[in-house]
């Protein structure tokens, strides 16, 4: 028999056996026990998207309040909770986890693995994210929402100026979401370094995988800083420590340093995965590999390193010594270089490519148009004299929404249009998609461009109202109209998605003619991802291999066996068996969650909670009967 007859037969037989080994099962218990990376990744994205919509509703409420001067729609108490929860949710519950969710879904497929490393830990990360987010939003409904901003500067968030439980809720939401982020980062790093398909040496890794790797390492270094800060805060509030109390030798600036040591890298933690997404979209729709693979990878890594060296530019208005401020000015200017390199490489790719304009590519155009404005204002903010004028004004609000929406949300929507067919097996409607793009791009610019001018004209941030004689009303009204357009565009996206599930055109394995391994399997992929795991011979496997590509054989098909490869060159190293689905990650998350929520009210919750946490962890790690 010839090879092309043999391969499908071999594949069908393998698939039948693999289904038995990798099936997640049915029923509520199986649903809660599911640990497959596609299930976890899908749930991660859905959960964080739910928080995105909830926080987006809060944004619309703020825009309605600010539409006219001296509006009494929302009072100061509620407004402060709304903007605090909006920021906290967008940063901790949407932007970071949605990118991690996409990575949890896509990275194992992109590297040709059957599963993510430590799938139970990834499931645990999901539940922690869900519980942390519910804590934040349920508290808001109970009039216990965070009230000191997502940055929660002490002493305003401290025991004396934020009585009640609102700031404790904030602190524990952070602890939840950062545990989730760190757990997911560990899974991603291990998958990327040890589970790549044979032949996928580091210099052949897809750019989104590189971006996920860099981001995951940043998470490992940045998140502990903010978790420590939030723990200090809750200790100051709960058990009377004085980390931030100047009267007892503490220092309010300590909070700012710990917070921004995390807070600035956070921006890049959100933005770098989006850069990876842009590279994949550009590659597929320009019909050529991205120009400058090596500079692109080095730029990602450089951004990650520099990203840790500019946190003080958030604190130029405090008593920073001049020489110190100058260092952070230079670093903040310097980080524009790797971003610039990447923009130029994409432009070169678009220039040389044969562009096929579809919705995902439109979002990339929108990204370049919008993000570069945010980058330019970022360069301005690096200059201390100018920063001191526009710091804490609407100019900065405009800047970081241009960077985060332009730099991360627009690429994310492009990525959703690009990869959802892989997840659901059905195409989103192209015309609705293009309408979605124009509504969102116009809405975002209409909302945030006028805010630059508002900042220059003196409008400070975090004000619940403003006097009519300041002349800020017209631009605020324009911004509100833009905000409504953005909300409509998100609704349109949801409509397009739901519609596609029933009437969308079937996608097939590779609807865009893309080069990556994730397109080498069916849409949606089977639970084991690949019946015959691929072997990689280049950076664009599907474009280089033609109809046939070499595959991995010799893995047990009736067990959850995966291939572990070496870090640098992805040479096969050994085989290992992966764990079955398990209810324990869910139970452990409940135990940890109850401990954290209890600790908002009494420090003894930490002591009492350690018992169920220990029990669930023992259950989690108990060896399977029959294992040696």
């Amino acid at each position: 028999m010839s090879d092309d007859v043999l391969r499908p037969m071999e594949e069908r037989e393998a698939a039948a056996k693999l289904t038995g080994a990798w099936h997640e099962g049915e029923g509520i218990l199986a649903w809660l026990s599911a640990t497959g990376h596609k299930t976890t990744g899908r749930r991660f994205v859905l959960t964080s998207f739910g928080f995105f919509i909830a926080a987006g509703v809060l944004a619309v409420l703020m825009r309605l309040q600010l539409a006219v001067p001296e509006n009494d729609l929302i009072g100061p108490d509620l407004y402060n909770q709304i903007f605090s929860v909006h920021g906290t949710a967008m940063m901790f519950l949407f932007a970071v986890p949605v990118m991690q969710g996409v990575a949890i879904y896509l990275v194992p497929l992109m590297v040709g693995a059957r599963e993510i490393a430590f799938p139970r830990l990834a499931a645990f990360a999901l539940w922690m994210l869900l519980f942390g987010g519910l804590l934040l939003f349920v508290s808001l409904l109970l009039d216990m929402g965070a009230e000191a901003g997502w940055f929660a500067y002490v002493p305003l968030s401290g025991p004396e100026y934020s009585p009640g439980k609102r700031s404790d809720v904030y602190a524990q939401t952070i602890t939840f979401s950062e545990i989730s982020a760190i757990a997911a980062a560990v899974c991603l790093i291990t998958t990327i370094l040890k589970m790549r398909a044979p032949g996928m040496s580091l210099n052949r890794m897809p750019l989104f995988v590189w971006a996920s790797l860099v981001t995951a390492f940043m998470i490992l270094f940045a998140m502990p800083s903010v978790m420590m800060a939030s723990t200090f805060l809750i200790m100051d509030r709960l058990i009377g420590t004085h980390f931030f109390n100047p009267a007892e030798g503490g220092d309010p600036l300590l909070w700012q340093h710990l917070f921004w040591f995390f807070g600035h890298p956070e921006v890049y933690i959100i933005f770098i995965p989006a850069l990876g997404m842009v590279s994949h979209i550009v590659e597929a729709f320009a019909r050529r590999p991205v120009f400058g693979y090596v500079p692109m990878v080095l730029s990602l890594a450089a951004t990650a390193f520099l990203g840790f060296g500019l946190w003080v530019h958030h604190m130029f208005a405090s008593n920073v010594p001049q020489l110190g401020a100058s260092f952070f000015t230079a670093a903040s200017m310097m980080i524009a270089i790797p971003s610039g390199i990447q923009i130029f490489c994409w432009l070169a790719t678009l220039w040389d490519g044969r562009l096929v304009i579809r919705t995902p590519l439109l979002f990339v155009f929108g990204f370049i148009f919008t993000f570069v404005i945010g980058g330019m204002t970022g360069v301005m903010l690096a200059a201390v004299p100018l920063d001191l004028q526009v710091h804490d004004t609407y100019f900065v609000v405009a800047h970081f929404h241009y960077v985060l929406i332009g730099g991360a949300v627009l690429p994310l929507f492009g990525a959703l249009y690009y990869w959802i067919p892989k997840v659901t097996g059905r195409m989103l409607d192209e015309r609705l998609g293009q309408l979605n793009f124009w509504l969102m791009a116009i809405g975002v610019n209409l909302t945030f461009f006028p805010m630059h001018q508002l900042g220059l004209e003196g409008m400070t941030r975090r004000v619940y109202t403003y006097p009519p004689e300041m002349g800020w009303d017209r631009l605020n009204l324009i911004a509100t109209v833009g905000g409504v357009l953005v909300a409509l565009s998100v609704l349109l996206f949801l409509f397009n998605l739901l519609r596609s599930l029933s009437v969308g055109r079937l996608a097939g394995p590779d609807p865009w003619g893309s080069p990556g391994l994730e397109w080498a399997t069916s849409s949606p992929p089977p639970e084991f991802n690949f019946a015959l795991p691929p072997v990689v011979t280049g950076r664009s496997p599907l474009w280089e291999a033609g109809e046939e590509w070499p595959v991995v054989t010799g893995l047990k098909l009736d067990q959850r066996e995966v291939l572990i490869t070496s870090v640098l060159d992805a040479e096969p190293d050994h085989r290992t068996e992966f764990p079955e689905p398990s209810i324990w990650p869910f139970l452990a998350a409940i135990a940890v969650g109850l401990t954290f929520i209890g600790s908002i009210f009494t420090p003894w919750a930490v002591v009492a909670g350690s018992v169920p946490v220990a029990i669930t962890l023992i259950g989690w790690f108990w060896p399977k009967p029959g294992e040696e």
Partner: protein
Amino acid sequence: MSAKPRAALAALALSLGGCEGPQNMLDSSGPQADTIEGLWWVMLTVTSAVWFLVVAAMLVAIWRRRVRAEALELSGEPKPHRRERSLGIAVAASVGLTVAILFAFTIYSFVLERRVFAAPPKDALEIQVTGHQWWWQVRYVHKDPSKIVETANEIHIPVGQKVTVRLSSPDVIHSFWVPNLHGKRDLIPGQEAIFWIEADRPGSYRGQCAEFCGWQHAHMSFWVHAEEPEAFQAWLEQQRRPAPEPPDDLTRRGRDIFVTGPCAMCHAISGTTASARFGPDLTHLASRTTIAAGTLPNTRGHLAAWIADPQSYKPGNRMPPTFLPPADMQALLAYLETLR
């Protein structure tokens, strides 16, 4: 920056929203704000040019697609890439230009930073500003304690002189910002910040707290009145006097209501027994243009409304409502109006 592009950009900005106003960094009225405004126009010009070039390159790349007759299908074979060298040169040149621009910006920023933050002269007029939730305590220091002036939410400075501002906060972090004069500076509990401001033309400039400080962060503004040195000295002399003796029975009754009633629990009026420090010093209340940290104009009607029900104008502020019979209220208002 030369006058021409500056004028053109100013016209552009005017068409967008305006460069004039009492709280506007583009309406600079002092040497520091002027320097920073210059930096703004330079950076805006250069970064706008870069943005236009990037977007133009993108649009040309999209346009080139249309003029080529090649099949525009996803199923088509990926393009063999042969022009890597010329693309590489273009990218490298763009990166080189970026690095040069950023380097120039950095040096320019350093130079200007050292200019606007140079230490103030030792003999400069010194003002202590203390931020409270949610008002500004202002004190003109003097070696002779009887010449110390205490006021609130209003700062007078002489034109053409550097004025040292000493900033501190007893509660939470605030930020002192008068955009027409200078950038902002934080007031951090447990620390003292010193910087200086200068106005080069007379005028009234609005300032506002720029660091989120709780419920009434939005209503924590103040005014800086820059006056010719003689007018400033006259104002300072006036402020140094204790409150005038009430001229008639009505105002005497008003004073008695003040010093024996709830007002004196928080406020001070020098020359009377009211000396509490919790709220603003009211010795020369009638000389101020606004009340409640810039929230309301200082008129008899607004003052009456504020005293009766401060929580409806500035919810959450520390002043409780005061219930006075109408006759007592009129007497109190009459007295407060004598505090020039």
